[in-house]
């Protein structure tokens, strides 16, 4: 007779450990929500001296915040478009044929995310600086596109691999040319992968600060604004509100991307 079979039920200690880790992951985010309602202007005192919603109104009036938000949205949109084009092209090429150096392509695309952000940042800065290109809106986008490509690439390539190639053959057999086949067969097939990859790329760019500090000139994206407040807190209550809003803004695309991925059982794109 064998001894008590292994692991039918989790022990109490394990459950407590798991719950503890989950709380550690999530409680800090709740704290931010809580602080966005504090009446305290100059410190982070706890318990909160009182509750108010006035800081949301104050934050809405701040033009520097609106400018930063606008810049971040513009940068993220354009970086996402660039990533969608470059990532899809690369995925299509890698899927189509088994050429020499295919692994090198994947490796090159992953590199900007695998190396510490500071390496990408200083590398771009020294290159842009030595070419004497002024740091601007466009240099921020060039930087962001390098590390956004890989999430689109992963999502689209995973989708290509699950697509029935017989569909393409059938389309061609029925007389459609390559362009029609792409338009009516391939594109609808990869549409949700593009959407999911695009949203992840958007979130990645919207939140990026390390590479941005090196590739931005005088511009201030929203993360750069928050970073300046982290180092030298001047507008504490406004920062609390901004932090809360940023959590909400980044959660939405991720939530939808997860949903889309889950519905099409594609989880390849979720490694950051």
């Amino acid at each position, binding site marked *: 007779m*064998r*001894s*008590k079979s*292994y*692991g039918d*039920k989790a022990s109490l200690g*394990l*459950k407590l*450990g*798991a719950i*503890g*880790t*989950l709380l550690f*992951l*999530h409680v*800090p*985010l709740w*704290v931010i929500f809580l*602080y966005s309602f504090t009446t305290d202007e100059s410190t*982070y*005192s*706890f318990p909160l001296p009182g509750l108010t919603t006035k800081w949301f109104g104050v934050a809405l009036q701040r033009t520097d915040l609106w400018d930063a938000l606008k810049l971040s949205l513009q940068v993220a949109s354009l970086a996402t478009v660039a990533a969608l084009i470059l990532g899809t*092209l690369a995925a299509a*090429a890698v899927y*189509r*044929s088994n050429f020499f150096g295919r692994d090198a*392509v994947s490796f*090159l695309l992953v590199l*900007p995310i*695998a*190396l*510490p952000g*500071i*390496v990408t940042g*200083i*590398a771009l800065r*020294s*290159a842009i600086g030595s070419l004497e290109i002024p740091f601007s809106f466009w240099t921020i986008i*060039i930087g962001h*596109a390098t590390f956004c490509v890989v999430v689109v690439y992963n999502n689209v390539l995973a989708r290509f691999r699950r697509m029935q190639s017989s569909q393409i053959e059938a389309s*061609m057999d029925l007389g459609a*040319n390559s*362009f029609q086949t792409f338009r009516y067969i391939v594109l609808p097939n990869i549409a949700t992968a593009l959407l999911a990859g695009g949203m992840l790329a958007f979130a990645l760019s919207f939140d990026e*600060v390390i590479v941005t*500090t*090196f590739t931005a000139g005088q511009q201030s994206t929203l*993360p750069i604004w*928050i*970073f300046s*407040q*982290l*180092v030298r*807190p001047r507008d504490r209550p406004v*920062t609390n509100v901004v932090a809360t809003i*940023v*959590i909400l803004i*980044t959660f939405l695309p*991720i939530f939808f991307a997860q949903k889309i991925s889950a519905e099409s059982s594609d989880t390849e794109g979720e*490694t*950051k």
Partner: protein
Amino acid sequence: MNRLSTYFYKRPALVTLLLLSIPMLYMLVVYLGSLFALLLNSFYYLEEFTGLVVKEFTLSTYAQLFKPTNLGIFGRTAGMAMAVTIMDALIAFPLAYYIAKFASPRLRTYLYIAVTLPLWSSYLVRVYAWKLILSKEGILSWFVHLFHLDSALDILLALPGVGGSSLSLSPIGMFIAFCYIWLPYMIVPIQTALERVPKSLLEASSDLGAKPSQTFRNVILPLAFPGVIAGSIFTFSLTLGDFIVPQSLGNSRFFIGQAVYSHQGTSGNIPLAAAFTMGPVVIMVVYLLIARKLGAFDAL
């Protein structure tokens, strides 16, 4: 249109080349080109009197890395990265183990989202949360006071090397924030590694008379190890290159990221900044080689 289509159809290699050319051109020129420029810069030097970068080959910039202050920066950063990695492995294990071996498929999906969601919420905002929590008048101090542990906290903060005026301005505070921020990167690979352990293996172990604790130590832990190594690649590398956390929660003692940031910024010493970044790059290459030997890439 049809003729163009046929033309391309007959030349699949040309199509692949065309598809590949634009993304590869971008990555090779912009990204690899920049990395190459960085490498090149690290062999130049800054003329002290003029403050200008002299474009002549020299190893003197690298030699500066071996000054005691700079070696201290490398040691401090690597030490922090190691401490964070070990701590994260310890905190991540129970949850990863629970998800992989005990959660129902439905609960598993929810827990997976619960683990990865913080990863996607803003990184800066998550650092900011710890600024709120760790500050002198903040939540943690309030709890410490509630449980009459003030003197213990004072002793902790008085420790040389890791202490500071408050938790939000000390290496201990940075350590907590780093552990928090990179934790999901450790949980996911460990979970993946554990999910691959077949149930039959565990049954075999108990059939052969092993107690649950023996099975855990002799079967589960060794099989989970590649997952821990895979997770450690992230926690280690990300800690090495970060300058947001040290800048926000640390004291005046620099980490690699801050050194790079300040050398390129105020003094315009891009050669030294470039040489500094070669530190984490070399450390990570060595680390990845060791990790591959230990089978970490199979667990990714």
